[in-house]
C-alpha cells in the first residue's frame, strides 16, 4: 500500500501535480461546501485518477496532518497492493429512510472477505444512529464500520457527499475493503467533562429531544449559553454536548451533538437518537482534556491496527465540529496530539464532521458518535 497527500487551494490549484502513471485505486478528499459544490474539483480528480474510486464530502474544516484549514481541499490518493475496494452510493430522501439506506449499502458491500467499511453520509438529513444500525444489520456485527457525517462549517445549511460523482446533498457513500491483506485500526474518544446534574429525558422522539426533567430542552441550552451564544444556535449548542445512556447500562453511554433547533416547539434535533427514559448529562470541554481524548483515539487505532511499524500506514481523522468551535485556534492541539500517537511520518487526512462513526470503545458495537475524535488507520501486510 502507498498513500500520498495532495491539496488544492485557489491560489495554487492541486499540488503536487500528478507526475507518474496512475495506479491509485482510492482517493479521499475533504473540503468546504463552497469549494466542492460546483463539481469542478471532482472533475479534476477524476481526470487525475481515472481508475480510482473517489469519495469525499463537505466539512467543518479539513485536517491535513497537524494543520486544520478552511481554505484548502485536502486529499489522499491510495494505492493498494492486493486489497480490493468496492464503492456504493445511495441517495436518501429523508431521515426516515436512514435505516433502510444503511441496509441497502450494507447488503451491496457484503461479501465473505469483507474486512471493513468506511462511510461518508449527508450530515443533516440522515439519522446517523439508524444508518449505522442498518449497516450493522446487513453486514453483521464483526466488521468494523467507521466514517462520519459531512459538515457545513457552523452554518448547518447543506452538506454534500460524493462517491464517484459530483458531491451532492442527501447522499450516503460506503466503501468496502476486501481481502486478507488489509489491516484496519480504529479508535474513538471524546475527552469531554461531564458537568451539572443528571437529567431525565422526559420527552423525545427518535433524534428530536423535547424535554429534560419535564422542561423544554431548548430553554436549558439557552440558559446555559447566555444571550450572546444563544444567537449562534444551533452551532453554539455544540459547546454543550450531552451524554446519554440507558440507566440500566450506564457503561454504554454515547455523546450527542445538536444539528438543529426549533424555536417554536422548543425542541432540539441531535445527530443520533436520544431515547425517552434515558439519562442525560451536559458536558463541557477543557482544551487539554479534549486534546488528550484525540490522543487516546489515535492510540486505540494504532494499537488495534495489527501491523508492523515498517508497514506503510495511513489514517483518516474525523473529529466533531463542536470540538473545533470550542477550541478555536487551539484546535491544532488535538491534531498534533493524534499525530504524536500515530507517528509523524504517517499520512493523516480528515475533517471536522457533524457526527463520527466507529465501533464503541467499550462494547465494540458500531455506532454513531458525537463530539469525538475518531481515527481509522489502514495498512496492508505482505501476502
Amino acid at each position, binding site marked *: 500500500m502507498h498513500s500520498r497527500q495532495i491539496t488544492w487551494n485557489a491560489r495554487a490549484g492541486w499540488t503536487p501535480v500528478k507526475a507518474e502513471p496512475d495506479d491509485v485505486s482510492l482517493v479521499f478528499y475533504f473540503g468546504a461546501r463552497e469549494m466542492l459544490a460546483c463539481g469542478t474539483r471532482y472533475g479534476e480528480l477524476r481526470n487525475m485518477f481515472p481508475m480510482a474510486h473517489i469519495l469525499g464530502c463537505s466539512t467543518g474544516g479539513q485536517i491535513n496532518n497537524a494543520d486544520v484549514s478552511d481554505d484548502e481541499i485536502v486529499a489522499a490518493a491510495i494505492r493498494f497492493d492486493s486489497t480490493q475496494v468496492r464503492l456504493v452510493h445511495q441517495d436518501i430522501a429523508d431521515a426516515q429512510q436512514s435505516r433502510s439506506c444503511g441496509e441497502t449499502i450494507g447488503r451491496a458491500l457484503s461479501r465473505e472477505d469483507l474486512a471493513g467499511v468506511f462511510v461518508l453520509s449527508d450530515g443533516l438529513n440522515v439519522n446517523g444512529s439508524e444508518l449505522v444500525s442498518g449497516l450493522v444489520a446487513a453486514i453483521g456485527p464483526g466488521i468494523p464500520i467507521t466514517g462520519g457525517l459531512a459538515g457545513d462549517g457552523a452554518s448547518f445549511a447543506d452538506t454534500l457527499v460524493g462517491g464517484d460523482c459530483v458531491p451532492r446533498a442527501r447522499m450516503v457513500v460506503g466503501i468496502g475493503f476486501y481481502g486478507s491483506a488489509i489491516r484496519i485500526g480504529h479508535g474513538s474518544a471524546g475527552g469531554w467533562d461531564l458537568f451539572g446534574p443528571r437529567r431525565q429525558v422526559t420527552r423525545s422522539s427518535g433524534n428530536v429531544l423535547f424535554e429534560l426533567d419535564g422542561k423544554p430542552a431548548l430553554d436549558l441550552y439557552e440558559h*446555559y449559553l*447566555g444571550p450572546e451564544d444563544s444567537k449562534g444556535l444551533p452551532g453554539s449548542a455544540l459547546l454543550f454536548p450531552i451524554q446519554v445512556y440507558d440507566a440500566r447500562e450506564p457503561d454504554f453511554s454515547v455523546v450527542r451533538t445538536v444539528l438543529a433547533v426549533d424555536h417554536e416547539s422548543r425542541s432540539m434535533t441531535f445527530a443520533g437518537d436520544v431515547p425517552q427514559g434515558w439519562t442525560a448529562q451536559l458536558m*463541557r470541554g477543557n482544551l487539554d482534556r479534549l486534546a488528550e481524548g484525540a490522543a487516546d483515539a489515535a492510540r486505540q487505532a494504532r494499537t488495534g491496527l495489527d501491523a508492523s511499524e515498517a508497514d506503510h500506514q495511513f489514517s483518516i481523522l474525523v473529529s466533531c465540529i463542536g470540538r473545533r468551535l470550542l477550541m478555536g*485556534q487551539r484546535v491544532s492541539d488535538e491534531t498534533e496530539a493524534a499525530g504524536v500517537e500515530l507517528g509523524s511520518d504517517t499520512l493523516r487526512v480528515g475533517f471536522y464532521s457533524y457526527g463520527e462513526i466507529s465501533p464503541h470503545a467499550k462494547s465494540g458495537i458500531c455506532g454513531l458518535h458525537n463530539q469525538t475524535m475518531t481515527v481509522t488507520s489502514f495498512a496492508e501486510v505482505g501476502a
Partner: protein
Amino acid sequence: MHRLIARQIAKATDATGAVDMAELATLVASAYEEFDRDRRRTDRSMSLMIEEIDAINCNLERLVAKRTSELRVIEADLRAQNMRFDIAINNMVQGLLLYDSLGRLIVCNQRYIEMYGLSPDVVKPGLGFRDLILHRKETGSFKGDVDVFCSSVWRSVAMGKVTHNVVETNDGRSIQIVNKPLLKGGWVTTHEDITERRRAEERITHLAHYDALTDLPNRALFHDQLKRELARIEPGEQLAVLYIDIDEFKSVNDTLGHMIGDELLKSVAVSLGRCIGGADFVARLGGDEFAIVQTTIKAPADASDLATRIFDSIRAPYDCHGHQVTTDASIGIALAPQHGADIDQILKNADLAMYAAKSAGRRTYRFFEPDMDAQVKARRILEMNLRQAMSDGALEVYYQPCVSLTDNKITSCEALVRWRHPERGMIPPSEFIPIAEETGLINQLGEWVLTTACAEAMTWPDDIKLAVNVSPVQFKSGTLALKIVAALSASGLPADRLELEITEAVLIRDDDAALTILHQLRAIGVRIALDDFGTGYSSLSYLQRFPFDKIKIDRCFVADIAGPDGSSCIVQAVVNIAAARHMMTTAEGVETQQQQELLRALGCTEMQGYLFSPPVPAADIKRLLLSSRDRAVA
C-alpha cells in the same frame, strides 16, 4: 515559547521569512478573545451549575424531610400493625409456630407455650426445631422419638406437603397438629385443642342415632340394625319385630303434663330393656312408639312370650314424679322371613299387626296376618267415604222417643246419626263412629248432629226434650260448652230442653277436667245423662262425684231382666241409688211388654226401645209427637 504563539508566528510568516505583524496581531487578539469568551462561558456555566445544584439540594432536602415524615408514619403504622399482629396471634385458639427455612423459630404464640406448659425463656425466636421438640420431651409433653419425629416433619416440609395429625396428650386431650410448608422456605405449625370438638362430634353422632329422651336407638339406627339382622338370617332361623304403641299416652300428656309423660316413656324404655334378651334390641321410633327386634327365635311363641313379659312389666304402676301412672300397650308382631324378608315389608307388617291390636280394643298383641292389610285398606276407604258423606250431606239424624213409665207419655227424643251408603246401604254407627273418633271427624259430626237436632226440636211440642250423645273425643276438644251455647242460641231451644248423654269413658281418665266441663254445661242449664250404665267399669264413684240428671241402664240388663237369675236385682239397685240421689233412670232396649211391666215395678222412671218406637227420621218423629199429644202412647 507557547506553542500557540509559535503557531501564530508561523502562520504570519511568509515564504521569505518576513513576519506580517498586522496578521500576527489579529491572530493574537483573536486568541485573547477566544480565551475571554471561554472564561466567560466557564464562569457562567459554573455559576449556573452551582445554582442548579443548590436548587437540587433544596429539593433533595425537602424530599428527604417528606420521605422521613412518611417513613415515620409508615413506621408507626408498622408498629401498630405488629402490635395488632401480636395481639391476634397471642389470642388465637390455636398454638402457632413459624419456622424459617433452617428450622429456626421465628414466631411462637403464648397459646402454644401454655398448651404444653413450656418455658418462655427456652421457647423463643431463634430456637431450633429439634431443640424445641427436645424441650417438650424433657418437660413431658412429647412422647415420641425426637429424631424420628423431626426427620418426618423435615421430609414433608421438603416435599411441600401439608400434614394433619391428631395426638392424644397425657391428660386425655386431643390436639390437632397441622404443618404447612411456606413458599419461600420454612413452615408454619398450628396446634389446636380439638377435645371439645371431638366430644361434640361424638355427641352429634350419638344424637343422630339415639333418642335423646330414653337414650334408646332411634328409628334410623333401628333400621340399620334391623337391616343387618335381616341380612344375617340363616335358613331355618327367624326373628320377630315387635311394634309397641303405648295406649292412651296422649291423655297422660294432656292431663298430667309432658314432664310426667316423658318420665313414663323413660320408665317404659327401661322396662322394655329389661324384658329383652342379650341379642335383642329395643328402639324408640318416636312419640309413644317403641320397637323390639327379637333375634333368632325358635317359634312364634317366643315372641308372644316376650309380649306377655312386656305387658306384665309395664302394667305395674310407675312412679312418675310422685304420680302413680298405669299404662298399657298395643303390640304388633311380624316375623321374618315368613312375614317379609326385606325391611320395608317387615316394618309395615308389624305396624299393621299393631294397628290390629289397637282395633281389637288395645291392651293386647296381634301377630301379623295377611288380611290385616285388606282390613286397614277397607277402613281407610270407609274413612274417605265418611268424609265425602259429611261434605255431601249424606248423613241423617234419626230420633228415638223416650217414654215415661208413669204416664206412658213421650218425654224426650234421642238424636241418633244415620249414614246411608250409596252402595252398602245403611252403615251401622258401631262401624263408622269409631272411625270418626279416631280421625277426629267426630267433632265436626257431633256439632252437625247437635245443631240439626236443636233446630228440629224447635218444631216439637215445648215439653219434649232432646237428647244428644257426646263422644269423649268431643269432651277433649275443650270447646264443647261453647259449641252447645252456640247451637242453643242458633236454634232458640231453651237449655233445659237439651240433655247430653255421656259415657263413663269421659270420666275414666282425666276426670277433673271432665268434671269441670260437666259443671260448665250444668251452669248453662242443660241436663246431663250417664249413658250405657252397667257396662265397663260402672264405678259408683262417678255417681258420687257428679250429680247426673239421669242414668241410662244399658240394654243388656233389660234384655236379661225377665230371666230366672235375671238382672232385676241389679236394675233395682241402680234405680234405688238413682232415686236416693234424685236422678231419673231410663231403661234402654225395651222390647216386650213384660220388660216394661217389670221395669215399672222396679221403679224405673222411663224406657226407650223398639217396644214403643225404633229410631225414625225427623218427619216421622214429628208426626208421632203430634199424634201422641196429650195421650199416653204405651
